Structure formats: C-alpha cells, structure tokens
C-alpha cells in the first residue's frame, strides 16, 4: 500500500471514529430512575403544595399517569419494567403461583434448589455442591443490555432482582429473603402469662421466663441444612432488665447494647452455629424494647442477611454489598423490610410501625447518598419501598401520617435533583392505591355458583385448597387475582377439557363475576376479567372493583363460610384490583411526548436514551 493510500485510509478511519463519537454523544450520559413503589397519582394531586420537589419536577418537566400491568401487583409490574414485556413474556402473574400437579403454592419470584448430592454422616448431612437460588422471571433485564454495551449501571433494590443479575453494580430488592429463607419472620418475646409460644402470619410469638430480670431469648436463624433434621440454628440474645428502671442491657455474641423502653438498638451481628466451631451462618437484627416493666415485650426484626458477609447472593458483583456496608454501615437487606406483619398481629401499634418504617427509610437514604456520590455517568436506578408499605397500613384513614412518608421521599428526590442537575431524571411508580374495605372469598363464590365442589361445608380452613372435591371442581382461586380452571391433563385431578369446553367455562365465569354485586350496598365487586393465555398464566385474572380485594384466605386457596366480609385487618389499602383503577405515576424533568404511557414504554425509553435497541419481546414506545 502506498503512503498516499495509507494516509487516506487513516483519514477515513479518523472521520469514521469522530462521526461515531459525535453520534453517541447525542445519547444521554446520565439517567437516574427513581422507582417509588405504590406512589399514587391522585394522592400527589391532592398534595402538590406539600411536595415541593415533585411539584418542581412536574412544573419544569412533566407528570402523567402510568399504565400498570394486569394484575397490578408489584412483582408483576416491576418484572414488566425490567424486561419491557407483558406478564406473558416474563412469566410472573401473581405473588404466588401454584404447581398444577401438587396444587401447592410457591413464590413466583425465585426458587431455591437444594444440592444434588449429599453425604450423610451421623446426625449431619454434608452437601457436595452449593444450594442455588434462581430467579423465575424470564426475559432479559434492560440493564443487562446496557451493561453489554459498556454503559455503567447501578441498580439498587430493584424488585424481583433476587438473586441479582450479574451485570453492573446491584443490590437485590423485593424477593430477598431473611436468613430463615422467608420474606420476613419477626419474633416477639414476652413473659406475659396470657401468651403462648405460637406462629403467627409473618412472625413468631415466644413465651420466655424471667430469672430475676435475666432473660435468654432464642433467636432463630437459618434452617440448619447440615443437620438431617434441619432445625433452625439459634443464637442466645441475653436481656438483663434493670430491677427499678425501664432500661435493659442486651448482649449477643459479645456485642452489647443498652435500650430504654420504646427504643431501638443498632444492628447486632451474630453467628448461628451449624456445626460447633466448624461452620456457621452470619446474620444481623435489630431489637425494639416495646415493654420492660412490669412485663417483658421484646421485638426482634427478621434476621437479615449481613451485607458484609452475605450467606446468599444479594449483590452484583458479590463484593459490592461488602464495599457499600464498609462505607455506610449495615443496612436492611430483606426485600420488604417494613414490618406490616408485626402491625397486623398487634405487636406494633401505628406509631411503632411508622417508627420502624422510618428506620428502613433511613437505611434507604444512606444507600441513596452512597449511590449518588459514586454516580458519574450511565444509569442509576434506585427503589423506594416505604410509600407502598405505609399505604397498605394508612391509606384512606391516616392521610397526615401517609403524607409524612410522601414528604420524606420528596426530600430524597430533591436531593437527587440538586446533586445531579445535568441528569435525565425519571420518577415512576408501578401502581397506585385504593382502599381495601371488603374482602372477597372467591373460592366461596365459586362454590356457591357450582364451579367448586367441597367435601362438606366451607370451614374457613387456611390450608391451601383443603376439603376440595376435585371431581366436582371446575375452577379454583389461589393468589390475589388469579383464577384457574381444573384442566384435564394439566391439573392433578382435572375435569375440564381444554379447548372449547374451557373457553366456554371461562366466558361463563367471567360473565357471572362481572354481574356479581355486593348485597350490602349493591356495588359491583368485580369490574373486569382478563384471560392472559400464556403457559404458566392463570386462566383468568380477576380485576376487583374499588374497595374490594381477594381475602387473605383466598390468596392461600381457602374456602371460608361467607363470600364477602368487612376488612377488619390493619391492612387497609391495596392495589390488587382492576388495573385501570390504580395507575402509577410518571414524572420527568423532560416533556413526555406520548399519551397514556405504560410501564413497558419506560424500558424501551431507557434503552433508547443510551442508543440501544429494544430486546426481544419488548414492545413499548419511546416516551421522549
């Protein structure tokens, strides 16, 4: 090649590179997405003046309602945001799915696979490989696509991202279990003679004995998988209550704390011995001294995975949680950390619940500060859980308290806006909220309308689908919006033939459900019914009317006596209703160019902002 042609080639290459660089420069370099679970558009519209940062975002950019998924449940909606696909694409339709062969419910988000080979030795079992946790969500996450294009991504607490996708920097969110492997099991220790040791929904009440103000509280950690019996490994939390004052010293594994009545301890770290001196699991928890005199009442949070030495994968890369914890100290790692269960069980009153929720927010805020400080370019996603969890307990009855939670998130959003003025900022929520006044026992409705057979009468049994006569059952409900047909060849004892017979049955049930009126007030109980038509999908998704929701017993597949009941639970707000009634919010510091934006549009938009093509199955629109 002559020197002239070589020079020409070099020139062409130079311009080529220059042009490609200037092209990529038109794409966004800094995008921050703040995902606020459960932020409701109508609540914002009632309180713009109290939420100055959100109002500023609205006035200088845009505000719209954001179409959610059917059903409008958090795991479903966030999975759609993550993958840009409808639920039929990512395969998550409810908090719980069921195995058609066993008819047992299981978490729709992730599955733990035990080691394939083990060696038994006396009372012990030694695994030859590690247990694995895998996500049940299908499809490609948008930040995987961005990460492959060498765009820096940080994803903090994205729901259903457990175990976290190994792309960019991430800390897992909703779906991350406590050390017991549950979504959160609190413990409440008391020496009240009226109390008994028992399990309650989301926790345990433990009766303890006092030895002159000295208490030893057994804190349960992980199931001991190295033992054949797999009992929970425990550690002793020692509480010494002062004989005269409302103050106590607590100690665990050599760590000491002093709490006055009504106070919270800091995080306490402990090892749960699996084989004495050889193997242990590390966890951490906080203690709340509800009462010290005359009776003991000690609340212990679910034992969280310690981010400094995580027992399960909670971050990407795996060292990320250690690095963050080293900088900011320990933080809640449990997916849904606000303890609504303790409130529902009467362990917390409303003030105690709000206080605990604030502690979760404080940890979130520390994480947000860390993320903002380390964010220079690329994409930062940060998730806030408090509005959703607080709305469940406050909606419609405690507007002032809920506004405080909104104001706190508004403050965090203000911090983001002030620190990164040059970033494209998007604030979005997965759904809105509504009141939950009346609980619908959908299986009882199916039984009364002849679609479900029972051996005997409804008993309100909470065991999944107990006493169901499958030879006379055409349909059953399990989950918060799901309704399944008892299909031949799919269900264990199916009697409905797939095809025209099942289609006709779906139409019939759908028509009758939409005509279903509440005898107490004549209101429409079910507004809409959807048929998703996907492999793992329910056959029907029930969209309840405002004020109605599937009862807790329905979620577990139980068949109580009456079809409708007043909701007397502390859980008074919900969103698992007709999707049209609970849209989310979309705010941005740029004008939104399309009408009726939906969650899946945001996924495509984020990819577009960085010049990336939408992945397979993504069918959203670009909003800017």
């Amino acid at each position, binding site marked *: 090649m002559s020197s002239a042609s070589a020079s020409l080639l070099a020139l062409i290459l130079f311009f080529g590179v220059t042009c490609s660089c200037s092209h990529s420069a038109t794409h966004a370099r800094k995008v921050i997405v703040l995902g606020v679970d459960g932020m409701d558009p109508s609540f914002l519209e009632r309180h713009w003046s109290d939420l100055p940062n959100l109002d500023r975002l609205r006035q200088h950019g845009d505000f719209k309602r954001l179409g959610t998924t059917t059903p409008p449940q958090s795991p479903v909606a966030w999975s759609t945001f993550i993958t840009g696909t409808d639920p039929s694409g990512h395969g998550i339709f409810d908090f719980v799915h069921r195995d058609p062969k066993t008819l047992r419910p299981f978490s729709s988000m992730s599955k733990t696979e035990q080691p394939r080979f083990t060696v038994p030795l006396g009372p012990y079992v030694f695994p030859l490989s590690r247990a694995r946790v895998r996500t049940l969500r299908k499809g490609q996450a948008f930040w995987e696509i961005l990460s492959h294009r060498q765009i820096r991504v940080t994803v903090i607490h994205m729901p259903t991202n457990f175990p976290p996708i190994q792309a960019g920097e991430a800390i897992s969110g909703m779906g991350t279990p406590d050390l017991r492997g549950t979504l959160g099991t609190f413990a409440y220790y008391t020496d009240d003679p009226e109390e008994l040791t028992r399990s309650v929904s989301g926790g345990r009440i433990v009766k303890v004995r006092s*030895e*002159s*103000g*000295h208490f030893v509280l057994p804190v349960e950690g992980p199931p001991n998988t190295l033992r054949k019996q797999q009992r929970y490994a425990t550690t002793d939390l020692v509480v*010494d*209550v*002062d*004989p*005269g*004052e409302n*103050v*106590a*010293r607590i100690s665990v594994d050599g*760590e*000491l*704390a*002093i709490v*006055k009545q009504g106070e919270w301890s*800091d995080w306490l*770290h402990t090892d749960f011995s699996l084989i004495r001196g050889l193997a242990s699991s590390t966890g951490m928890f906080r203690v709340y001294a509800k009462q010290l005199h005359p009776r003991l009442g000690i609340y212990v949070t679910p034992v969280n995975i310690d981010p*400094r030495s995580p027992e399960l994968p909670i971050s990407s890369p795996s060292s990320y949680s250690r690095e963050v*914890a*080293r900088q900011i*100290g*320990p933080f809640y790692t449990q997916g849904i950390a606000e303890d609504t269960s303790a409130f529902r069980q009467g362990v917390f009153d409303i003030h105690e619940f709000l206080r605990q929720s604030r502690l979760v927010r404080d940890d979130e805020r520390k994480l947000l500060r860390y993320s903002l400080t380390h964010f220079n370019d690329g994409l930062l996603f940060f998730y806030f859980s408090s509005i959703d969890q607080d709305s469940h307990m406050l909606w419609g009855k405690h507007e002032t308290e809920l506004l405080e939670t909104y104001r706190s998130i508004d403050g965090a959003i203000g911090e983001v806006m002030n620190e990164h003025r040059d970033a494209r900022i998007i604030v979005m929520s997965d759904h809105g909220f509504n009141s939950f006044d009346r609980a619908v026992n959908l299986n009882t409705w199916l039984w009364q309308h002849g679609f479900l057979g029972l051996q005997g009468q409804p008993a309100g049994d909470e065991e999944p689908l107990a006493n169901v006569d499958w030879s006379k059952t055409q349909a059953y409900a399990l989950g918060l919006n799901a309704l399944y047909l008892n299909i031949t060849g799919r269900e264990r004892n199916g009697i409905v033939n797939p095809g025209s017979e099942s289609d006709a049955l779906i139409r019939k049930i759908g028509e009758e459900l939409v005509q279903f009126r509440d005898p107490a007030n004549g209101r429409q109980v079910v507004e809409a019914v959807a048929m998703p038509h996907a492999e793992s999908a329910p056959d029907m998704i029930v969209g309840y009317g405002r004020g109605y929701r599937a009862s807790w017993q329905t979620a577990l597949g139980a068949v109580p006596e009456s079809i409708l009941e007043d909701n007397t639970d502390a859980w008074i707000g919900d969103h698992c209703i007709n999707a049209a009634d609970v849209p989310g919010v979309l705010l941005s510091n740029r004008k939104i160019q399309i009408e009726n934006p939906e969650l899946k549009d945001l996924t495509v938009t984020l990819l577009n902002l960085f010049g990336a093509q939408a992945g397979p199955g993504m069918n959203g629109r670009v909003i800017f």
Partner: protein
Amino acid sequence: MTSIDLGWPAFCSLLLISVLCGIAILIVFRRWSDQRAIQRSKSLIIAYLLEFRLFINEPSLVLRAQRNLVRENLRLIRLLLRPALIVTIPMLILFEPLDALYRYAPIRVGESAIVTIQSNRADDPHLHSPDEILVETPPVHIPREHQLSWRIRALRPVAARVEIVWRDRILQKRVVAGAGGIHFLFTRSRFLFDNDVNWFEIRYPAATVLRLHWLVWFSVLSTSTVLLLNTCTNRFGRE
C-alpha cells in the same frame, strides 16, 4: 457494630513497629541460638528431602529418610525453642499496648458506647462525663454479674476522663471520641487487688488497619523483616 478502618497513618506506624520487632527478633535469634547447629539441621532436612526424590524406587530408604526428617525437625524446633521463649516475653508485654493502639477506634461523634463496671459494693455510683459526652441512660443493674452498665454518646470530639463516683471513692478512665489518628484505648481497666471493684470498661468500636486485624499485618511484616534481613546479612557475610 461496623469496624472503623484506621487507614494509612496506623499502617505506617505499625510497619515501623513491625520492622523494629523483626530486627529485635533476628538479633535475639542470632545471639541466643546455636547458629551452626541450626544450619546443620537445615542442611540435613534438605538432604533428607532430596533422598525422597533420589531413592523413590527404594521404599526402605524413603521410610528411613522420613524418620530422619521427623527427628531432624524436632531437633530444629528444640534449637529454636530458647530464642523463641526469650522473644515471647517482650512480645507478650508489647501485645497489650499494641492491641490498645490498633484494635479499637475512638467513639465516633453521634455514636454510642457502653460503659460497664464490675463492683462488689452495695451502694450505687454515678457516672460523670465531660460535656462532650452524654450519659444517655440510667445504670442497668445486672445483680447476677455484679455489673452496672450505662450508655454514653459522643456529642463532640473529646479526649478526657469519665468518672465513677461513690460517696467515698472516685474511679477515672480515659475516654476518646471523634479524634483522628491512633490512640491508646484500653477498653478494660482491671483492679487485681481491689476488694470493691474488679474492672471498669468502655466498649470502643472495633478497628482494622487497611481492612485487616492489626495482628495479621504485624505477623506478616515482622516475619518478612526477619526473613529479608536474614537473607541479606547471610549474603553480605559470605561476600
């Protein structure tokens, strides 16, 4: 409680102390050990190891070499025992101040710590603190352990004394909060010949030196110094 990293200043001082200790260890080993016997023992160990390779097809010779190897190792340990014991005494004396320097960090401003006293006295003392330290709780009596505990919180940086005050007696202990650098932080003061008080403790937050326990750095650095200096002096000695 999250440990606090003392960073590079602590590492540099620890490096200096470790190197000095390494030099001292080398001198002691040179002075109080039979260098010729040690050298002979090391040569024999190498020779027996070589026998393994040379006579790999002669099981009886390999077995004999193994037996000799064990015997020579024991002899080497015996030769090293005297200087090792001599080194151990100053090291044990040195351990406590080094532990006080590097194992704990001052209480961070805004954070709390627990003060505990183990006492056999029947009357209750008061805990007096400087203005920069707030005593947040009344004492927690733990009768079965003869202990009293308070929670204190650092409001501002300070290096002063807290006092346990009875009607007829005052006990003092240094407290450090919010200060940078490294400090002697003796968590527990013991009173061995005191009938009234057994010990007085302030629980400081744990510290690390560049993310590791100070003892790890000390072991690595002092051993490296010994090995390095030993190699160098041997080489220069031969030249």
